[in-house]
């Protein structure tokens, strides 16, 4: 029931860290005893995942990360260690997050994981998702968590990065998640389940919309860096706790939105505010949402 998060952290030449993740009182993230900078990105994802594990009493997340500011060096170091760490940790869920999208490295990693962690469910967001889709490996994944622009990327078989998505597939106008999710699945650009983050969150199963979550509506969450990352952290942790994937995605959307409402979100707040609000939200609602009742 362990979640392994494979990612980077924003420090020049930062060393490889692997270990259990903890959340300090001030919101800081510690990986294997080393504190990493709090930002949007993987620290926000890990913070949310820790809150779920703490609430449910499941194993805390494990992370394999290295410093990378976009040059790809840390990403390469993480991939070099992945097979060894996965063999040791025996994760039930492996989530790829902020990484340099290098197709060859992702292909090798998926081949290795098929050997050393054949039963693990694969999750991808951010650069991990870009690499998986661009490499033609999306259908090996259980869950991907795109935003509306990234859904256009998944649905466009000819592009290798969301920066190249055609206007007509982009999510801001005339957005049709039903058609795009189906197209992404049909063209091999989608995981089995998609959690599509937006003003209305859509959850697609095998290319068809299975759930829509649109309450509470907190538009300010889009402006806060890292609120998509907290959704991914929540969903990954629920999945590792044994929730069915669609339920994990739905509970993640609901918890994130409720946290935004409870904290009175403004565009100047941060993902750490969402993470700090989660314990109360989970305690008050998760039993009702997902049947996971802590006694």
């Amino acid at each position, binding site marked *: 029931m362990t979640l392994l998060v494979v990612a*980077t*952290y*924003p420090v020049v030449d930062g060393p490889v860290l692997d270990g259990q993740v903890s959340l300090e009182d001030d919101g800081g993230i510690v990986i294997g005893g080393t504190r990493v*900078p709090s*930002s*949007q*990105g*993987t*620290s926000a994802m890990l913070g949310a995942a820790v809150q779920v594990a703490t609430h449910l009493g499941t194993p805390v997340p494990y992370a394999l990360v290295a410093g*990378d*500011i*976009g*040059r*790809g060096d*840390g*990403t390469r170091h993480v991939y070099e260690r992945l097979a060894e760490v996965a063999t040791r940790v025996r994760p039930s869920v492996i989530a790829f*997050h*902020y*990484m*340099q*999208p*290098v*197709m*060859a490295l992702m292909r090798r990693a998926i081949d290795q994981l098929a050997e050393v962690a054949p039963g693990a469910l694969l999750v991808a*967001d*951010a*650069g991990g*998702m*870009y*690499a998986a889709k*661009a490499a033609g490996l999306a259908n090996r994944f259980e869950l991907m968590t795109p935003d*509306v*622009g*990234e859904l256009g990327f998944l649905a466009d078989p*000819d*592009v*290798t*990065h*969301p*920066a*190249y*998505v*055609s*206007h007509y597939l*982009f*999510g*801001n*106008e005339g957005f049709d998640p039903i058609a795009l999710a189906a197209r992404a699945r049909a063209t091999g650009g989608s995981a089995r389940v998609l959690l599509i983050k937006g003003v209305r969150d859509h959850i697609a199963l095998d290319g068809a919309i299975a759930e829509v979550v649109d309450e509470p509506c907190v*538009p*300010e969450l*889009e*402006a806060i*860096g*890292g*609120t*998509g990352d907290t959704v991914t952290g929540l969903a990954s942790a629920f999945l590792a706790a044994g929730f069915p994937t669609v339920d994990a995605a739905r509970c993640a959307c609901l918890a994130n939105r409720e946290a935004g409402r409870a904290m009175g979100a*403004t*565009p*100047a707040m*941060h993902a750490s505010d969402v993470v700090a609000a989660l314990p109360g939200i989970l305690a008050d609602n998760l039993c009702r949402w997902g049947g996971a009742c802590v006694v």
Partner: protein
Amino acid sequence: MRLFGRKDADPSPGAEEALGLFLFEAVNDAIAAERALKTAGYGVHLVAPPPHLRAGCDLSVALERVEHVGAERVLAEAGVHVREWVNDAEGTASVCDLVTSVDFGDWLMVRAGNMKIVVEKATGVIVNTSGGGCPDIPYLNLALVGKRLDEVPRPKDLGYTLCGLMLDRAYVEVRALLPGGEVA
């Protein structure tokens, strides 16, 4: 929501012209090359290489084939490492130029593609950046948030990836929208 930066996308800008491509190991090399070549007077644009030449989130520079020797000299003098020149730009794709904004009252959010920047109107302080998934995005978030627009380097000078380049487009647009903020 306001939409103000849309052009017809050209799916293959090199298909009808005698263009070639400089390919690079890293996106920031392509950005540096574009800057050096434009400064030297060349007409260039940043594009995605054709699918068979891509390794991941690649960015290349397209220019007229006949100019490539001189341009290569400019890049060498500027210290920009070129991986390869190819005499064919067919199959390239343009970077998404869809830019939108959302007014949150005291704050303005601008999106470029799926990258976002949020600024407090009264002070010009960047309060949030988000979107994208490359490792320079959390790094740019740490470097930019809490600082005024006019006191930070441009994201494309700090970042290394296409995500950073798209954030730079949002940065330029939000400066244009706020009084006295336009980028030279």
